[in-house]
């Protein structure tokens, strides 16, 4: 187990270095260099001042020196200052938004599991039934649904036509401070229903399909036949023997679905005006705020990597075959 952990940890470090190299290369893709949004179209900036800026950001040094400096910075969570008017440190900007995004994504992951596992298992047990067909239809529509359109349609129905739900923000702006705790929770819930629906629906298709197929395959295998032949009740066969084997690899699938989920945050946070890192990313791209863009890209991919790593370890802990194989 220790050898396995060490090996995985080494891969983690190598992949992490790769992420920093790719992120760093993207900074230097910019025509005119990373400073162009600060200096372009700004008549106040003279060539001398520009030179000073280049020196200040260390852009006159060789690339590997710059990379090393940037790397040392991010270890200390120093991503530089934002190009926007407030010029705040990038990390401060991200720090206050990260919990919102993580909270919504964790909640939607929980909802995905809550729906996908029973629905997928039931579909597999009753393969080819009407319920199974519904599951298939849900899966494919989930794959093909443009999440931003789903968001707009939800806003139109529940926000505009029925006026049941608010269509923007995390909580009300007027009168929020006067609410008591329960009113506040209720206010948040109302604001979160639509974004959560969009996030959950987007991620559901893949997991649902996986659970259904995995369970279907396991139910056809020899050891299930054997369990049935022994005369075990169907309930025990399905819930004790089949389910365990079918759901184990789900840990990996969940790890792999993190980038898709987090990527979806850009879309639903932008549409519903939720102050998370997805919205920050979009605003930074529109304003060409390069330090914020790079920090976001790096941090989100780092979190994805960490998620995959934890999923790998979890899987190995749950299934001894894996850690023995990869020795």
């Amino acid at each position, binding site marked *: 187990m220790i050898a396995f952990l060490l090996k995985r940890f080494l*891969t983690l470090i*190598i*992949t992490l270095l*790769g*992420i920093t190299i*790719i*992120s760093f290369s*993207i900074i230097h*893709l*910019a*025509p005119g260099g990373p400073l162009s949004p600060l200096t372009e179209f700004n008549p106040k900036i003279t060539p001398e001042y520009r030179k000073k800026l280049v020196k200040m950001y260390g852009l006159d040094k060789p690339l590997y020196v710059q990379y090393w400096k940037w790397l040392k910075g991010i270890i200390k969570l120093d991503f530089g200052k934002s190009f926007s008017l407030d010029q705040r440190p990038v990390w401060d900007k991200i720090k206050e938004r990260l919990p919102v995004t993580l909270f919504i994504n964790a909640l939607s992951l929980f909802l995905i599991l809550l729906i996908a596992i029973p629905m997928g298992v039931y579909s597999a047990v009753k393969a080819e039934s009407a319920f*199974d067909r519904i*599951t*298939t239809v849900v*899966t*494919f*529509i989930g*794959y*093909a*649904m*443009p*999440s*931003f*359109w789903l968001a*707009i*349609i939800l*806003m*139109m129905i529940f*926000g*505009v036509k029925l006026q049941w739900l608010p269509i923007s923000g995390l909580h009300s702006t007027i009168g929020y401070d006067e609410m008591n705790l329960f009113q506040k929770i209720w206010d948040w819930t109302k604001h979160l229903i639509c974004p959560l629906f969009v996030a959950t629906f987007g991620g559901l298709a893949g997991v649902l*399909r996986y659970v*259904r*197929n995995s369970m*279907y395959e396991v139910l056809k295998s020899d050891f299930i036949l054997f369990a049935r032949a022994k005369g075990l009740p169907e309930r025990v066969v399905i819930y004790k023997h089949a389910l365990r084997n079918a759901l184990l690899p789900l840990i990996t699938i969940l790890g792999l679905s993190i*980038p*898709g989920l*987090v*990527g*979806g945050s*850009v*879309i639903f946070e*932008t*549409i519903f005006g939720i102050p998370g890192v997805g919205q920050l*990313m*979009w605003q*930074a*791209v*529109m304003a*060409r705020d*390069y330090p914020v*863009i*790079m920090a*976001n*890209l790096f941090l*989100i*991919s*780092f979190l*994805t*990597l960490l998620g*995959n790593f934890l999923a790998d370890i979890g899987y190995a802990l749950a299934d001894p075959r894996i850690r023995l194989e990869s020795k």
Partner: protein
Amino acid sequence: MKELFKELIKHKIGCASLIVIFILVVLALFAPYLSPYDPFEINVNEILLPPSLKHPLGTDLLGRDVLSRMIYASRISLEVSLVAVGISIGIGVFLGSLAGYLGGIVDQIISRFIDIMLCFPTIFLILAVIAYLEPSILTIMIVIGATSWMGVARLVRAEIMSLKERDFVLIAKVYGAGTFRIIFRHLLPNALPPVLVSASLGLGQAILIESALSFLGIGVQPPIPSWGNILIEGKETLEIAWWLSVFPGLAILITVLAFTLLGETLQEIMNPKKEMK
């Protein structure tokens, strides 16, 4: 290829998706003849008209005919997705076959590179790259292609690895065939079926990404119509013009669904062992 087509026609879902895609291609190719109005013509007297006989899908904020704009938009979506998928298949096949055939250190490096690329949520990576480039149709084609090849690469790698030990490769080697000849003449044709499946699925995904980018304002730029950027106006006029949001989204949903189901059907026909659902 011909037999594959025959099988496809026999299959109910496969046939339906082919018909949808065929209609779309016809609309895109003959857009100037099929669209009832000029999609760029601004008409201040006909702003935000609901669907009627004259304008079957209504008009937008500038009085332009939505149906005509959507027909022209199908051009853009197909163009972008075809080129993007072409690029991603190109990179994926190239890197995948190198890794699969050469193995060893080359395989190690390429596989690690694939793992690294997979850590970036696609939309974040695309946004970061686009921030540095001018948003244009060409940019998004290249960026979508360059960020979606990893699946194909893995697939081709696995396929080539399982094929390269077979006898026909050995015989080709004995006859003095070079590495590239073996890969392109002998191995890749055998790996074609799964690549075809992922191309079809990829077309759908590329259309989804293109429309999302256009909706976010960093893809296809107005006045050039795209299903995604018509929806920008749709969101702004949510309370007064439902037709601006409903129709473009339906077009995206149906198109992506058709490409996805076509891919699934191809998979089922070419690899009967794997179940469809």
